[in-house]
């Protein structure tokens, strides 16, 4: 999951002229690596990729600060989803 996210972020979102290598624990938000429009693009990408909807109340720093955070958040969401399906 981290890989998919990192690929998307470094390939599509990050500004600046040099290629930046992203680590799963890099602070995406505080460092300004990704701006708010970029974050929303990421949300749309995730919603599309993992077939789920991210409600506004989930769009917090805690859930989106790093790639790791996002993965954790998504895993909980996916587990909950399957749980309800069962």
């Amino acid at each position, binding site marked *: 999951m981290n890989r998919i996210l990192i690929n998307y972020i470094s390939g599509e979102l990050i500004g600046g002229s040099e290629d930046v290598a992203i680590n799963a624990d890099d602070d995406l938000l505080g460092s300004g690596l990704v701006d708010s*429009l970029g974050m929303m693009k990421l949300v749309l990408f995730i919603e599309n990729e993992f077939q789920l909807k991210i409600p506004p109340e989930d769009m917090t720093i805690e859930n989106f600060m790093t790639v790791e955070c996002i993965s954790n958040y998504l895993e909980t969401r996916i587990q909950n989803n399957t749980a309800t399906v069962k």
Partner: protein
Amino acid sequence: MKPETINKEKLLPLTQSQLLMWAGQKLYPDAPFYNMAHSFDIEGRINTDIFQKAFAELIVSCDALRTVFREENGLPGQYILAEVPFELPLMDFSGKDEQSIRQWLQERSEQIFDLDRPLFDSVLIKAGEERFIWFLNLHHLVTDATSSTILYEAMNKLYTSFLEGNEEDRAAEVFSFEDYIRFETGQEEKNTENIAYWKEKIKVLRSEPKLYGNNKTVKTSRTDRVSVSLGKERTEKLKTLIAQPEVRSWTQDLSLFTVFTTTLFAFLYRVSGQKTLAIGTPSHNRPTKKFKQTPGVFIELYPLIAGIEDNDSFLSLLQKIKTETNDYLRHAQPGCSSAETGRSFNVVLNYINASFSDFNGYPMNSEWIHPSHCDPMHHLRCHVQDMDASGIIELQFDLNKDVFNKDQIQAVPGHFLQLLDAFIADMETPLSKPVLLTDKEISSYFTEDIKTENKIKPLIERFEENAAAYPDRTALVFKGESITFEELNNRSNQLARYLKDQGADDGKTIAVYLRRSPDYIISLLAILKAGGNYVPIPSDYPLKRIDFILEESNASVLISHSELADKLNEREVPLLCLDKEQEKILKEGTENLKLEADPEALAYTIYTSGSTGKPKGVMISHKALDSYINWAAEYYHTGEAFNFPLFTSIGFDLTVTSTFLPLISGGKLLIYGEAVSGPDMSLLNVLEDNQVNSIKLTPSHLSLIAGTKFSDSGIRTMIVGGEDFKTSLAATIAEAFDNKIRIYNEYGPTEATVGCVVHNFDPEKDKEEASVPIGKAIPGMQALILDEYLQPVPQGVIGELYLGGSGLANGYANRPELSRERFIEHPQLPGERLYVTGDLARSDGKGNLHYLGRKDEQVKLGGIRIELAEIEANISELENIDESVVVMIDKKKGADEEVKNCTECGLPSNFPSVDFNEEGVCHLCTTFKGYEEKTKKYFKDPKELKEILTTSTENNPEYDCLTLLSGGKDSTYVLAKLMDMGLRVLAFTLDNGYISDQAKANIDRVVTQLGVDHIYGDTPAMNEIFVDSLHRHKNVCNGCFKTIYTLSTRIALEKKIPYIVTGLSRGQFFETRLTEELFWDEDVDIREIDNTILEARKIYHREEDAVCKLLDVSMFENDNVFEKVQFLDFYRYNDVSLEEMLRYLKEKISWVRPTDTGRSTNCLINQVGIYVHKKEMGYSNYAFPYSWDVRMGHKTREEALDEIDEPIEEKEVFRIMEEIGYKLPEESSSDSNKLIAYYTGDEKRSSSELRQELGKSLPGYMIPVHFKHMEALPLTPNGKIDRMALQDLNDAQLSMDTPYVAPQTEIEEIMAEIWAEVLKMDKVGIHDDFIALGGHSLAAIRVTARMNEAFEMDFALNTVFEYPTIAEFSKHIENTIMELL
């Protein structure tokens, strides 16, 4: 720069953002509002050669700097030039002062760009040995804020590399804007959902907020920029605020953005009072890494919309903004903005997070130079930025000069910061709490002095002086008899002595229950002379109310006449019957009593309507009365003595002016007694007698007399008070008196003694406002506009009016609690009081106050204040009534009731006589289904049209046909198709003076492209035709259409053109001629239909309207004109779908949908018609034609409803109305307002009984007109009585009350039924004129067809015009039948 040769193959379309800017620039070609100029002030020595070389290289690497814009076939396109030879100019300003450098930069920044040349300007200025300023100005079409930083950084890098000798080291990779253009074009399909989202989103917006109450039309693009730095401390605090978990968003920038947006919303709410608000904000719109490094214009503006509630705090609003911002980010996808989204806001927040670094290691200060102009749609722009990355945020406000006056421009940043500081201090602060005004503004607000220094001469003293000075002058005239000043003084002295004898003197309250008469005046003077105070009781008050007043006021004597007093109930107060005690009174001495009254002692108490069910007594002191009357004598003074009529109720404090003003100024009082029964017609007598030069009255009085000329009237001074005074009424009255009168609007509640705010009406200066301003506070009085926290509001902003000063009442009689509630401590002047008026007002730039209505339930009827609660309390006391609600309905508001729309065609439920079935489908739709099949016969094959037009063309001298080209899609399509047929076509357009620029451009482009001959027709009578059409049809289109037909027929005749081809849509056929009656026959004969329509056309052209009067219509007198020039409807032969048409127009013709008319029309005056129609009829004039478009399948229901619901710009409508000379019909305010009572109880009670019983306790004007029994009263979700719902319910009920003469015979009854149905009326009287009822040729078809069917007759179409009333026509029918027999 020389124009370059263009590589045509490089033609590129404009992006959505560019299109909007291009259109904006086209509208204002001379305004540099899209200039984005920067000055980069570099502290260091620059190698100018290298700098120049670097700049030349910058041009090479950035296609944005090489882009030019050109119109090709009317469509804008952009081209990227291969090279742009440009040498960066150098200027030496060293030694010049800072001021001249700044001025140069400013002027240079305002230069207009030529769009078909490269859109940049740049200069390197040497300001000193170690200081260079790089000036770079680009048109917004090729740049935005991020782009500016990209260009700057690229230049920085180029310069540094070149300086180091790395010629090969070109700029950092700079990408091409061309890629984005292609990208955006490809996005369109993916974004349909987002485009729909924005379209839906802006629907909640009704009108744009009026900032600081400004409602002028914004014409200028000129703006002032005021900047304010937040400073280090405040910026720090702000950063602490955004770190709070409740505030924090994803990123610091996003957090700051939401805080500023929240504050700006709070600001808009506070300065406009509006709660549903929109702010436009740019999305940087650089979706990929590559685009983040591409120079060019990417930004697109989208609205953020907030629904504010009165109890919102900064934090609760911020939570809404967070969600809103989320949705914004989700949907702000490339290319989704449009002219509609762009028009949805008039305020922009621009949060800029771009910043510039040092230049070549030298410190650099940048400035974004404001070109002194902004798009006029944006009344306020707020930029938030820290471009030099200093860590201190700076705000810049660009403020339109038509919206904000000089003082306001300076005040805006201060007001914004007051809110921001309150937010920072405590995020839970309610939005309405922080004081907007700065301390400095507040201290200057309270400077008015309300202490009166000069001792005011008491009224009695002035009267006695006049009696001594002019003893023989006439003081009173009543029923032809005169009383001199001396006589009046003597008689009031006698009565005063007599009162003293009875013990009714110092401080005693004396009730006066008399008709308007000399005795009344004598009594008032006597009471005041004796040191007492009076309570006037009008002769028409019900006994219960009189009992209450007598008891409550604790009157020691009741002065009356036996004629009146005999009716009174038993009471304690001793009666002084003037007629019975006359002899005794006349024995008293006549000399003056020379008592000196205590200024604080009471002069009179007037009882006004009270919310508890009982009237309340307002106690006025001598001081208050004397200051008012002395002021009035001086202020209204003309050099001539005042001659006033006394004709208004003595229980109304407005009457105080007429009562005393003549007496203290040596003038004459002409007394008009009240009628013993029936309505009081005194005003008409006053005007007829023409004996007065001054008059005091209410707007309701004026409505009564509006429409009559008073050229001979001697009235020169008119003081109007008591209720809202409409400017239109004031202007009508001024005109009726040949503008020889001075009209004053005098405002003042009884509690502040008659009048304390005044304005001299000026027809010229006041015409912009709907109501005449109430003006300025009179000397000694203070009128303050405060918010709910008793803080002054900024100039222009609505607040509650508070009054202070010497004119305030002492309080309410026996109601200490109510007195404390309404007369509060002055927040600024210790020891003084303020009266809480409950009136809403605002002040304008000239210091005049404007009255804006009541804050609470209190209403005014005919200038008299009424507490609905008092009426309700009285009704509820009646037998068999549980609960009651009284509402005042304003007939004009009928249009507000909830309108449903037909579920199929969208026709609104307020369309006359519309009937809906259970599925919500209108009767037109259901009926149409019954004959739709038959109508197909009417339509023909395209081949037939071609055949008609192309046979025997050799006989036509010049043209084969004339076609009517409005510039819209339908007529453009027709023209193109006719040209396709190879015909020689003459295109005709009526220039009605209001075709939009873009539509005109469309027309010109299309005719040039098609190579067709084209003429514009016009007429100097156009405006008169519009006015006539508005009166006759409540729209402008009918007049315009008829003008087109008349002028084009004339041309066709002259040029011997046999056919005129129209572009009427199929919907329009059904709307204007194909009535259902034409298809009643089982076997429809199309030739017969054509004949009927032709007959109708003949009548149509011979109708006596403005066109007939003002244009040459002689050709229609002879029937053969209709053979020489025949009309062909293109769409009768062709059925073209909208998509097909638009595709064709897009591909083949350079037709662009106009964006400058604000709606889907070519014509700017159209909205006047819509406005008038909606106002007069309650629904849009497009509702009916569009319903046909929907039935035809040419529009969807949603499209039709969208177009009908488009908001109308009232200011523009009023401007055009004035331009063409149309006045909305004056509605008499006394007619339009009615009191309606609703009650619950076991059973319905008879209204006349209720009226009678209520008449015992309430005066006539407080008794409702209608009483309606309800099972239960409707409640709001909060459990309060839903007064709005009750107001809506009523309109239909009231429409039943229209008087009319009912049909008598069977024939009349049948006819009345037919007429009512066709003319869409509830009832038609037998003497009502067909034409006056709005009957025209179409209605004639329908009426005639139905009557012919009903009576088995064969009347010609024009019969109804020969016998235009039911009475006459029915007689004709009878005669015809008789003849047949």
